[in-house]
């Protein structure tokens, strides 16, 4: 496992006039994750993600913000092992210069941006014109393109969440860490005359839904938040850490092969990792 860049980019604690700065992130315990898929469906329900009957299991056209990948250690029967990796947007911070977030640096329309207040990578649908550079740039395949206008079977549009705008054809979308929930929580705080949010006030839909409690969400730089400690676990790792994207989604696993599978190994490098 490569050494995690835990300490990078922590120098932004001072306020910008609105008082609070956050760096929201996630720690996902892969030993607890059962691959049940509740996070995926909770995300789809929360974020008005469309579905089409033609898209069943078509990786090219399916729309997922949170996707659970199944991986295997590649050993033959009966030594085979499997694990699941839930993959939301990794909300890469990059190093130093913020434009190092891979998608942000290539967007010609400033439709996607890195928020210094929350550490969340935004996506503005009405601003996006669908060039899909960001999709090419993202090493995690978190971005999806709307090849069609979203259509809901008659009557089903009733369950749509007004906090998230349904997207039109021709734009890119992705996980927002349920930013609208942050907005709602902040709204409530404002109405009560507060600026600070408590840890439990802002949780993403997937975190809330996970029956295994495998997902922990919070402010990575707030020592009182659970993620702050979890991310420093010796079993913590991030995906494709080599690339230096500095993501804010951490994973935990006590299984060596799972931790190793999180990075891409070429040729000789991979020999010890995947003996199969």
């Amino acid at each position, binding site marked *: 496992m490569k050494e995690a860049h835990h300490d990078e980019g922590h120098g932004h604690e001072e306020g910008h006039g609105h008082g609070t700065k956050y760096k929201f992130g996630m720690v996902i315990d892969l030993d607890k994750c059962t691959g049940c898929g509740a996070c995926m469906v909770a995300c789809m329900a929360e974020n008005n993600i469309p579905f089409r009957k033609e898209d069943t299991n078509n990786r090219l056209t399916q729309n997922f913000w949170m996707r659970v990948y199944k991986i295997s250690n590649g050993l033959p029967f009966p030594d085979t092992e499997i694990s699941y990796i839930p993959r939301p947007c990794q909300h890469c911070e990059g190093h130093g210069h913020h434009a190092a977030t891979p998608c942000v640096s290539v967007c010609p329309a400033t439709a996607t941006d890195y928020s210094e207040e929350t550490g969340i990578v935004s996506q503005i649908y009405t601003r996006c014109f669908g060039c899909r550079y960001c999709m090419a740039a993202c090493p995690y395949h978190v971005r999806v393109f709307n090849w069609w206008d979203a259509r809901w079977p008659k009557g089903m549009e009733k369950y749509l969440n007004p906090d998230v705008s349904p997207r039109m054809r021709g734009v890119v979308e992705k996980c927002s860490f349920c930013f609208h929930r942050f907005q709602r929580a902040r709204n409530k705080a404002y109405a009560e005359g507060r600026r600070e949010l408590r840890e439990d006030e802002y949780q993403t839909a997937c975190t809330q839904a996970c*029956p295994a409690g495998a997902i922990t969400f919070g402010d990575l730089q707030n020592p009182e938040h659970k993620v702050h400690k979890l991310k420093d676990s010796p079993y913590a790792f991030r995906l494709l850490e080599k690339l230096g994207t500095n993501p804010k989604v951490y994973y935990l696993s006590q299984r060596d092969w799972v931790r190793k599978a999180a990075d891409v190994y070429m040729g000789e490098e991979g020999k010890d990792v995947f003996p199969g």
Partner: protein
Amino acid sequence: MKLGRRTFIELAVGFAAGAGAGFMATPVNWKLMDDMAIWTQNWPWVPVPDRGAVTQADTICKLCPGGCGITVRKVEDRATKIEGRVGYPVNDGGICVLGTAGLQLLYGPWRVPAPMKRVGKRGAGKWEKISWEAAIGEVVGKLGDLRNNGQAHKVACVLGSDQGTVAQLFDRFLSSYGSPNFICTTSSEDTYELATGLMEGVAASRAYDLEGADFILSFGCGLIEGWGSPVRVIQAHSIWRSGNANERATVVQIEPRLSNTAGKADQWIAINPGTEGALALGLAHVIIKESLYDSNFIEKHAFGFENCAFAGKTCMGFKELVLNEYNPDAVSKITGIPGSKIVSLALAFAKAKHPLAVWGRGKGTTSGSLYECMAVHALNALVGNINKRGGVSARPQLATRQWPEVPQDNVAIAGNRMPRVDGAGSGQYPLTRYLPDRLPQIINGQNGGAIEALLVHEADPYYTTLDSAAVAEAFDRIPFVVSFSTYFDETANQADLILPNHHYLERWEDCPTPVGLRNPVLALLRPAVSPQFNTRHVGDVIMEIGRDLGGSMSEAFAWESYEALLEETMGDKWDTLQETGYVEEKGYEPPAWGKAFQTASRKFEFYVTAFDQAGMKMKEDQDYLPHYEPLEPEGDPAAYPLTLIPTELMRLADGAVGNPPFCIKTLEETELKGDELFVEVNPKTAGDHGLSEGQPAILETPRGKAQVLVHLFEGIMPGVVGIPKGLGHQAYDDYLAGKGVNANSLMGVVEDPVSGLCATWGIRAKLTRA
């Protein structure tokens, strides 16, 4: 002046330039450009969800027997999200993949919008909307005729469960009408209840204290794949996976395929399918031989462990049977597990602080073998964890108010005396309450006339019963089928009338303790949204049908409405239920060993004396004891060299409710691709049969044939083929129908010799290149 060409051009160009300049001197051009940009962002067909006040409504999810508490987030009168209810005793905030997608079922096109009368051929999906009066009138007319013609006992109800007031209403309806044929679909719960009844003498549901166990030995249970109350078990799994290496519980999964549960387990032991019972006895052998059993429990509270006197003779005890028959070598031959592994597993299990053996294949949807269940239960008894922390107990339900006795006229009394059509409770199977899986065979065997009218509620027997071809034939032989389904499911599709029930988010109903839960909980479904369609509560409908049939039947349903009945039945719990949605018996402790067992010996019986009481004549001593009796899968191994086993997936609902689009979307691309389903095959087996990844193949069993795609998976035992359950629907709509193959159509019913319940665990099959 004549308008020459030149002049014309001069004028035109001048005017155009002037117009342009004039226009440019106004703000309208910029405004129009801006408006046009905005226009492209607001296509009229992209819906704009209305904003409004956000409220929460707490109720109970009814999509599976798990009984999770849910919180429905609403925007004005629209339900926009289902979340797990925080603090609820079953699932404390967690929710499963199906429960989250519940709103797609509420608002989806698969809802039955009004009472429907079939106009085309059965299954053609041609319906006519009729009024409730007309629909109820039709049912009353038909049932009235049957009753008058002395055929009351040929009416049957099939339900998904016999718990709660709605099921009781159906039961009451049949009792007052004059039919013994109240039938519920069965699951591993039924077999476990039977085993508990036989070995402990109590009629109660089994409950596992999963959270308190530290060594979980699972005999093929899909612990994190929808087994038991799914969210609760997944939460227990997370407790097992918490803390450092010393604090973590050990999970051992025994099954032929690397399921998610096996994948997460500390140890996965691949076993020859169908031989789990032998392994349990093999483990018992080691535990007894090494004297690692709980001697206090065995000596003071168990009967039939040692050889014992019963019915005037000395009978062989469990100990002797196990020591003689199930040594590791013998068991190794049956199960394919090395003897040394059996020994080490038995030692680890017996030496753990809170060992727990759990039983029920997959999600527990198939009833399974009684002796196998008894063998696993005996294992728990050996380590003394009956009614203990981290053990297994028999859990009663919270008491509700009894209803007045059912008034019965002569027709009712005569009808109720007739034997049940499924043969349960008498003759060959005196111990069993319901045997729905036998119905197709019986109906087809009698060439019609066995059942004249069938009422179906919250069950989809047309889809879930094994051997779909026989089921279809049986339905053809039932002249009148009424469905109370909320959705256009398979059975509703085959019905003559659909009297749609409210969706579970639209209605009041009680919900007894969910399967497997240790503490008794009584919960209440409270409507989160108003009815979206012209539906009616099935409780009200069945009472109205009863009243309209007249005579003593009107007296049987004297309640004003279902809500009134519910309030009366809940008695003193009603106020709490209405306010908080549930009542939990928090400090519940199962009875101590001295008082726990109601068997003839007042002890835990390894040697089951109740068989004789029930009038069952067992041939040999071992028939009274948990033992291994192989249930051979159907088919000639020479013609069908492989073994097909069903696999159950968390993301794929395979019961009475079809998988909603969101859940279908989450299936792996190695499970379903477009409309084609994958079967899992070990690469070695695939090589032997000339198959490769993604290749179309024909899967054939003695019961059916289907085209599938091949997925090579190292995690499945060579010689075994895994097929996911829950696909191949014909009903619902395009999002589900026509995708994949119904695994039930490829398998037949193998009856358990003692209970008569369906004990099918697989079938012989062959796989050839398409």
